[in-house]
């Protein structure tokens, strides 16, 4: 079993498309990651600064409205705040479509897939209205530019991004003996202290893994080391030494920082965690599960682990190890596509024109994509926790979620396209050598073209990768 171009697009890319010839070999796929990010240029999304601009405008509008309570200006300011909310919801819908379009139109689907993988690994969400739609710009800034770097660079970018600090409460964490804690205690009688959330998730989810060799003491020490990382809406990320717990901290047997240590000590600790052998095993397993099967071949996992350890987490090398291993090329399609990837691959297989997607307004984006995705179990930008979306096939194919997938397949393609593709041709486009006699029978036995196309997209073969 070796590289198979069609399978490569299905399993490691965004699916087959009538507009693109599959990548020739693994080298071409890997090289795609080193080239200019054409999809991002074609379908731009602002970086995290864009969200901060929205958030600042939102806060200002809210403040202005609050100040106008019981004055004649209130109604106008109330309206202005609502307009700002509407603008932010428009942005969210717009950014969703840009991400969808990248998957639908790219010749380099592997880039989109690894971006989605790492975005999920480093799940962060907005918990307040001002940052509610921050997840996509966060991915654009913290994740996407680092997918071909070393894991430690990706880790540092994600963990120090304001959205992550906000999501996992790091900006509230203050060293119990920090200057800030002492000042608040003496002047206002307030007690402030550590919040361990980010430190725990960095060890448990982002690096060593839930069964990794760390203790509660490591969590505590890392939380102390992390104090000082904060953000505000004006400047974004900032290291505030006033929040920082003085003195060195010991994490996984290694001492970091000292009395006047700053952000460098935190970066050092993150680099060491990224290079830890347990991190290699944890990430190798996750990659193997994500790209091959819920129960991955142990030899593939061992192969990825070894490459990660040998290269200190050089992600390009790890991807190369993934693409060269025979277990990556078993013919049978296993993993169920999660809703976003599923809908993107459906639009791609149908050849939905980019203009049709670009032309959707916010309401249509919700009706045709975001609400169906939520009913399929994937609320866009809001997974159920910092561990991200499930990889388990059974979590996606529940009765309710499958019903919604089928409803979408029967109804939405015809809304997106003036003319649906001919079912049999579309079947060959969408599934290539995975097409079979039974699917061809279904494609011809359906009563209408709309149902035939819907059934192809609803087939287990198309829903797996």
């Amino acid at each position, binding site marked *: 079993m070796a590289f198979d171009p069609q399978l490569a697009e299905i399993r490691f890319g965004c699916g087959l498309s009538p507009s693109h010839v599959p990548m020739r070999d693994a080298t071409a796929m890997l090289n795609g990651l080193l080239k200019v990010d054409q999809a991002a240029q074609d379908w731009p999304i602002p970086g995290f600064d864009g969200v901060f601009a929205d958030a600042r405008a939102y806060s200002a509008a809210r403040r202005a409205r609050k100040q106008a309570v019981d004055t004649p200006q209130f109604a106008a300011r109330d309206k202005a705040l609502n307009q700002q909310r509407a603008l932010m919801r428009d942005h969210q819908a717009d950014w969703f479509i840009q991400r969808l379009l990248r998957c639908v139109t790219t010749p380099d689907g592997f880039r989109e897939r690894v971006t989605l993988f790492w975005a999920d690994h480093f799940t962060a969400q907005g918990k307040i209205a001002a940052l509610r739609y921050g997840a996509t710009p966060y991915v654009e800034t913290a994740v996407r530019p680092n997918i071909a770097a070393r894991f430690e660079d990706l880790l540092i970018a994600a963990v120090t991004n304001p959205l992550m600090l906000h999501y996992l409460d790091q900006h509230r964490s203050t060293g119990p003996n920090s200057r800030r804690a002492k000042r608040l205690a003496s002047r206002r009688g307030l007690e402030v202290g550590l919040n361990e959330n980010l430190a*725990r998730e960095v060890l448990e989810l982002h690096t060593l893994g839930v069964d990794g060799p760390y203790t*509660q003491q490591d969590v505590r020490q890392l939380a102390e080391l992390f104090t000082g990382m904060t953000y505000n809406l004006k400047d974004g990320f900032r290291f505030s030494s006033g929040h920082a717990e003085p003195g060195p901290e010991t994490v996984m047997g290694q001492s970091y920082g000292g009395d006047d240590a700053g952000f460098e000590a935190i970066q050092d600790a993150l680099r060491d965690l990224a290079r830890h052998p347990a991190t290699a095993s944890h990430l190798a397993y996750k990659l193997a599960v994500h790209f091959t099967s819920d129960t991955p071949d142990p030899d593939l996992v061992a192969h990825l682990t070894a490459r990660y350890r040998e290269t200190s987490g050089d992600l390009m090398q790890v991807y190369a190890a993934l693409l060269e291993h025979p277990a990556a090329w078993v013919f049978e399609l296993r993993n169920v596509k999660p809703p976003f990837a599923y809908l993107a691959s459906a639009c791609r297989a149908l050849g939905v024109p980019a203009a049709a997607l670009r032309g959707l307004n916010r309401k249509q984006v919700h009706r045709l994509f975001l609400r169906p995705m939520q009913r399929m179990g994937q609320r866009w930008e809001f997974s159920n926790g910092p*561990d991200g979306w*499930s990889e388990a096939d059974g*979590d996606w*194919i529940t009765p*309710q979620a*499958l019903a*919604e997938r089928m409803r979408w397949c029967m109804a939405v393609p015809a809304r997106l396209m003036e003319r649906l593709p001919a079912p049999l041709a579309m079947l060959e486009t969408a599934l290539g050598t995975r097409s079979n006699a039974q699917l061809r029978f279904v494609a011809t036995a359906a009563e209408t073209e709309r149902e035939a196309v819907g059934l192809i997209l609803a087939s287990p073969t198309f829903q797996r990768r």
Partner: protein
Amino acid sequence: MTKHASSSAKAYSRRSFLTRSGLVGCSLAASPLLTPVSFAAAPWDSRLVVIILRGGMDALDVVQPYGDPAYAGLRSSLLGGPQNGALDLDGYFALHPALAPLMPLWQAQQLGFVHAVSTPYRNKRSHFDGQDLLEAGTPGLHERRDGWLNRLLQVTPGVEARTAFAIGQGDMKLLQGSAPVSDWSPDAQIALSPQAERLAGLMMEQDPLFHAALGEALDLARDARDNAANAARRGKRSRPHQRIADYAATQLRGDTRIAAFSINGWDTHNRQTGALTRALGRLSDTILTLKAGLGAGIWDKTAVVAMTEFGRTARENGTGGTDHGTGGAMVLAGGAIRGGRVHGHWPGLDEAALFDRRDLMPTGDVRAQVGWIMRGMIGVRHQDIANVIFPGVEMTTDPGLLRL
């Protein structure tokens, strides 16, 4: 430390029951999910309905403490009490007029409240975190990734997928976890022509996961359709929350013992009067629809428990609303409930008695209240409640919320 949700445990999340119930590898023809269903009877007989009121319900406007001398000073446009149209409950508390349709239940002692309760969530006031903590049932945030209602199932023998049902399209985190549960929305449709349905079945035959889910979806959709048709025949208006309640009742008449769903719309920063009236109308409809759907026999052994992520500020704000607060109230209904009273310890509304001089002071933990309800209705062991379901909860004396 608490280590939670290992990757293997995660693989067994709520939606994976189909793959774990022995379907994979066994004969599909023999699968109970593909044929007219007959499930094993549930391991207990009482019914528990948990309703999450998302948005932070203002307890002081729902169960109005008009007998508290400080109450009138805190509310102006939101001032209630019998002189403003509220329904007197016990000479001290009055009920928001939008719950008037529930007064017969109060008089029958099948409606009660627990006042001044909250989760352990304090001082941060984010809906997101507040709801996460309410559904996780832990002392602090991010300690477990499963929900307390699922952990109840984990410690209860004889549980099947149909024992507990999450209803509607929102995620019910309180039911997520390794124990099998079902979920469906009465508004979900599968919308296939008979021919497409046949072809889909054929296409999925070779894939047990898809085949089982399709069979179950078709069954559930058919039930929901019949349900809606029956409701229409009985001349019922059919709004989404009523369809959910009706659907819950149908399931609870069968083998389901626990149903959970949400009612949104409690975040009343501005013009609270209108918004709260609408939200309470939905709650009132929901309870009455459940009661009608369950029938007297089952209603008598049912407890409906409605709770919210936090209360709201004691003082009305400048826009006829209230802001995020702390202490709130639970709404209890059902024949199993010891109603006709406002439970809980009333802390008073003097400024010094308020939490942070701002919110109703929580004097009870919602987790302890629910713990006692589960103990009384399902017979869960005390140590399972305190160690597994609601880790670290303090259940000192039985608050007497049940008739049993």
